[in-house]
């Protein structure tokens, strides 16, 4: 088959993107938990017959860039491609078999047409709870994965009458809010069906020759664009390091170090020198680390390059086994985003040495996760789960964005009115946090304040937070942002709480206040134009009052 022209190729590539988007809309519209339907913590993607990622929905980078890796692990360790069956569903959440952490349930389905496998469709959904030591399954006290919830190894089960399946029944019996998990899981299954139909339609329209040529060329095109971008980098080795605050068990800072160099059109990212894996749940499996690196490189080298497996080909990642960036079984991993975001901060920091005008200062660099467990009037468990963001890093030509979902995740927020309608809390404040952006010629974006009061006799609170000690860095003379904090107000007194917290008991009237970090500043603060300083003061983004 000769090559397809650029027009035909673009038409077919867009059709694959549309297939992934149709799947995404299906999950959004039918999901049940606030984490999926409001916060939008899910992703969808389509793959060719060999399991290579062709197109992604515009959702969460850390999911999207892990799904091809996950699929490769499945194919080589669990079920070779030729054994995938038309009517079966593949599902898993096991971090030690291609997953990232237990709340993320991943589903795949092979797409067949006239008896031949033509592609694979996949979804990844963050479920609000999969059991384990704390509500929301972010158990900060965990020291091994067994405490983190239900672990589902790769399974191949019939895709019909799914709720009656024994494996699904076991899942539902082990989680705090089975109705939500069931609803979100059905949304995932429904999206696979929609994706399957879309892939079949594309294949029928063009026929196998054009279809498979297009698959090859789509990947090739992205690969070539990536190689071209790499070729433009200066030929020097760049180093950068940053730290994760702690693992929740000791005060020891966790070092993440990376060096970046290019050899013959390839880019090598080496994490040698990073911390050994830790006792608490901030470890990353290799799939998570790869996903973070892919995102970090793509965002700087080619944000316009269509993201797919082709982009990954010129990238080599060295992450020694047994380190916090490539942990070994049975290390706990629930809070892996603390480290994964830091990987992005570090790779961006190293790239800033190579491309000083292209890389912004550090964004807040963590997923601010907490969960409150209460019971409803019928005594059923109720989980209020939150993932919050902070401020964006400033760049050479703009201030950082205030309260903006940056980097490795891409999350929305849950409306306060929605939370109050479902959970026994009253919010006192949800707003921007003045003075939290790093000063600079361009100012870092502001973080957020979330303060609420418990209106229930008891509640259990757990948190996986970060950036309380090591603030998001500034570049080019810009200052770091303000770090985050967590405070408990009880009986008129105030207590600073640690960033990682497992099952803290709360009582009626307790107030929890989370402040998230801003983004780093860019350029020396004394070069900030007077007009911008005046606006900052008039609008209270910056204040001389201690806040």
């Amino acid at each position, binding site marked *: 088959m000769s090559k397809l022209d650029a027009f035909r190729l673009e038409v077919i590539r867009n059709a694959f993107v549309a297939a992934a988007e149709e799947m995404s809309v299906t999950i959004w519209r039918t999901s049940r938990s606030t984490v999926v339907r409001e916060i939008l913590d899910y992703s969808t993607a389509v793959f060719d017959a060999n399991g290579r990622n062709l197109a992604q929905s515009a959702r*969460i980078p850390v999911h*999207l860039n892990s799904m091809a890796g996950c699929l490769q692990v499945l194919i080589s360790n669990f079920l070779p491609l030729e054994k995938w069956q038309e009517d079966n569903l593949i599902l898993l959440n096991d971090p030690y078999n291609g997953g990232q952490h237990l709340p993320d349930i991943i589903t795949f389905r092979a797409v067949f047409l006239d008896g031949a496998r033509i592609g694979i469709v996949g979804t990844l959904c963050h479920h609000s709870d999969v059991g384990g030591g704390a509500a929301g399954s972010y158990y900060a006290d965990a020291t091994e994965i067994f405490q983190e919830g239900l672990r589902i190894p790769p399974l191949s089960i019939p895709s019909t009458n799914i709720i009656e399946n024994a494996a699904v029944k076991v899942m539902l019996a082990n989680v705090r809010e089975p109705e939500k998990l069931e609803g979100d899981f059905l949304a995932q299954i*429904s999206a696979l069906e929609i994706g399957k139909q879309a892939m079949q339609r594309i294949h029928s329209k063009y026929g196998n020759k054009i279809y498979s040529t297009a698959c090859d060329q789509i990947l090739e095109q992205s690969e070539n664009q990536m190689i071209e971008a790499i070729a433009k980098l200066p030929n020097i080795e760049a180093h950068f390091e940053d730290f994760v605050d702690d693992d929740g068990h000791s005060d020891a800072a966790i070092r993440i170090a990376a060096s970046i160099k290019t050899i013959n059109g390839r880019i090598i990212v080496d994490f040698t020198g990073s911390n050994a894996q830790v006792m608490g749940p901030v470890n990353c499996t290799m799939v998570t680390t790869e996903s973070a690196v892919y995102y970090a490189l793509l965002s700087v080298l080619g944000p316009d390059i269509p993201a797919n497996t082709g982009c990954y080909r010129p990238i080599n990642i060295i992450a020694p086994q047994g380190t916090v960036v490539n942990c070994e079984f049975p290390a706990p991993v629930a809070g892996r985003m603390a480290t994964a975001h830091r990987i992005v901060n570090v790779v961006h920091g190293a790239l800033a040495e190579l491309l000083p005008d292209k890389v912004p200062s550090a964004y807040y660099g963590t997923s601010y996760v907490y969960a409150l467990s209460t019971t409803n009037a019928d005594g059923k468990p109720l989980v209020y789960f939150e993932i919050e963001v902070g401020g964006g890093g400033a760049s050479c030509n703009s201030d950082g964005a205030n309260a903006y979902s940056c980097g490795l995740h891409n999350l929305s927020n849950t409306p306060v009115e929605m939370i109050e309608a479902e959970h026994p809390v009253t919010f006192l404040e949800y707003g921007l946090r003045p003075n939290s952006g790093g000063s600079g010629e361009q100012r870092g974006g502001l973080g957020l304040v979330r303060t609420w009061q418990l209106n229930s006799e008891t509640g259990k609170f757990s948190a996986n937070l970060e950036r309380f000690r090591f603030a998001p860095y500034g570049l080019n003379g810009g200052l770091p942002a303000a770090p985050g904090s967590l405070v408990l107000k009880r009986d008129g007194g105030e207590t600073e709480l640690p960033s990682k917290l497992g099952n803290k008991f709360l009582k009626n009237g307790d107030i929890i206040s989370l402040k998230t970090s801003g983004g780093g500043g860019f350029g020396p603060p004394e070069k900030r134009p007077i007009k911008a300083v005046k606006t900052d003061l008039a609008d209270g983004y910056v204040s001389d009052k201690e806040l």
Partner: protein
Amino acid sequence: MSSKKSIVEEQGIRVAIDTGGTFTDFQIYDSSSGNSYELKTPTTPEDPSLGLVTGLEDAAKRFGFTLSQIDRITHGTTIATNALLQSKFPRGALITTEGFTDVLEIGRHVRKDVYSLEPEHKHILMCRRDRFGLSERMGASGTPIKPVCHKSLESIVEKITNNGIETIAVCLINAHVNAQHEIEVGNQLEKFFPTLPISLSTDITPEIREYERTSSVVLNALLRPIVETYISNLEARLKAIGINAKVFIIQSNGGVCSPATASKEPVRLFLSGPSGGAAAACHLSLLQNKPNLIAMDIGGTSTDVSIVFNGKTSDVYQSEIEGCALKIPMIEIRTIGAGGGSIASISKPANLRVGPESAGANPGPAAYGLGGELATVTDAHVALGTINPNSFFEGKLDLSGELSRKVIDVNIAAPLQSSIENAAEGLVEVVSARMSNAIRLSLFEKGLDPLDFSLVGFGGGGGLHAIQVAEEIGIKHVLFPRYASTFSAYGLLWSNIIHDFVVSVYGPIKETGKQIIKAIEKLNKDALQQLAEDSIALKNSELKTALDLRYQGQAFELSININSDQDASYIIDQAIKDFHDLHKLRYAYSQPEAVIELVAVRLRAIGTIGYSARPAPPCMSEESIHKRDIYHEGAVKTVNVYKFDNLLANEIIEGPVIIEQPYTTILIPAHWNTQLTEFGDLEATKRENSE
């Protein structure tokens, strides 16, 4: 309104005016003769009412009527959209619950471009110094936690006074459950600021989700001074030229309202233009007896897609414009950034992109000769010969085929080492494919099959892409309306008065029987009162009630129509059944055992203001067919070129052929036939034997 018989009783002239960014479109219907006319004039952006009035005078001269004969004007305006696009707003203040003044700025903080490190542009609408926190708090159950603190309110009033604030928005937390505090604050503010417009969130959209409600009421507040000025200018200008017609303004829901309502709730005008196109498609669906249509309006910078299913468009209750959330009922329209002015480019190595960047009206496509150096979709058509450079826009705009060929060559053909014609045809194909994807997504969301639909192509570019799009999604019938380039205005001509009302009722549906009945009573009362204010007779009014339902825990509701004359248990049982069915149709599954939650009771009040069948078009003068060379399907072909107005009914014309209208061009490709329908529209059908 199911019969095709005319129920128009008036004898005067009815005019519909659709003011767009570049052109103002007119449709004129003379009810005494049954004739209708179209006209296009340039828009005057500084004060669009000026160009509007000039156009009316021009139309009267051209079509031979006097201005005083006009008895009804229906007007669609982009004034709200333009104000937002250009951020040209007066200074406004927001009063909200203490602790929540940043909700407007935080928004939902998600990004659309996953890999970009540049933050997306955000309209903050009201800056932080103009947002004030009021000491008060309503609980989630509707019980006040803290009363409105008058001292706190007075201190806010003091800060607003003499500070250049021209409009005020109020949005308090949980006001959707109990609006008491908002009403109290509103009353106080009216005393302090008798001349300032004050907008309350619960008057605009009494629904849960504080950001969406705040954003909606803030947009409303900011638009009020602008729309008030515009409407009073318009009324004065109309009066000055002797027009004494009743004026209606079209809203995003496809219905019209009085100028007074438009001034008070201008946030309802955002889709004022595009909703005319959807309304026109509904009208066409009825006329042609084709219940399922896809309406595709291809303009200069964007394409709007709406779906008519069983004769009706559907509505959405939440949407986004320029990144600002809007919780206002709107006709469901999907807009993509692809149109005649969309720019094509090659990023290295060999990755073709078309749009969403647009050349706009100035410099516009290179063919305009205004200095455009980038290749646009229009240039591709000129290079292919499908657009005749000498008869563009009634021949008033001279195009340069040479310039078009040059930009296609430099920007596309040379980098890809292809011929100019091949590049131009490829470019057109890529744009059509993007439009097809948008249509497929619109149908897909409703669980509908393209094979059950006909496509309607209109707007400046509809004629050149519609059949290619139809081929791409497997549709075999395409309609080109007689007035393709002023079709949205045509829709405005026949729009009804529509008012939407909503009451939030939250809980498992089986436990809400009493609340549903209470809500229906309140909604009916409000609706009848409003229709009476519009002087709509009872026999010309229609009330439609619906429940917004979802499975417990879902974020999105499906609207289920109910028969509000029935008792509660009948309504509930029927709604539950219909909900499961619709969920299954749209999302491929239903859960019969799951709890269904009611979120809101909605009522739409419709006042029919007349509708008429279109008379068959007069047979025009003798044919004047000429021939032209176009590049089509990989080769140069000599094709016949017809004038639309000269076509004869029942004559079957085989493609490839070009049909020209005063403001637009239609391409009927090989393998397709076309003929006039009895109402004077053009229908194209794929030939049976072709594949």
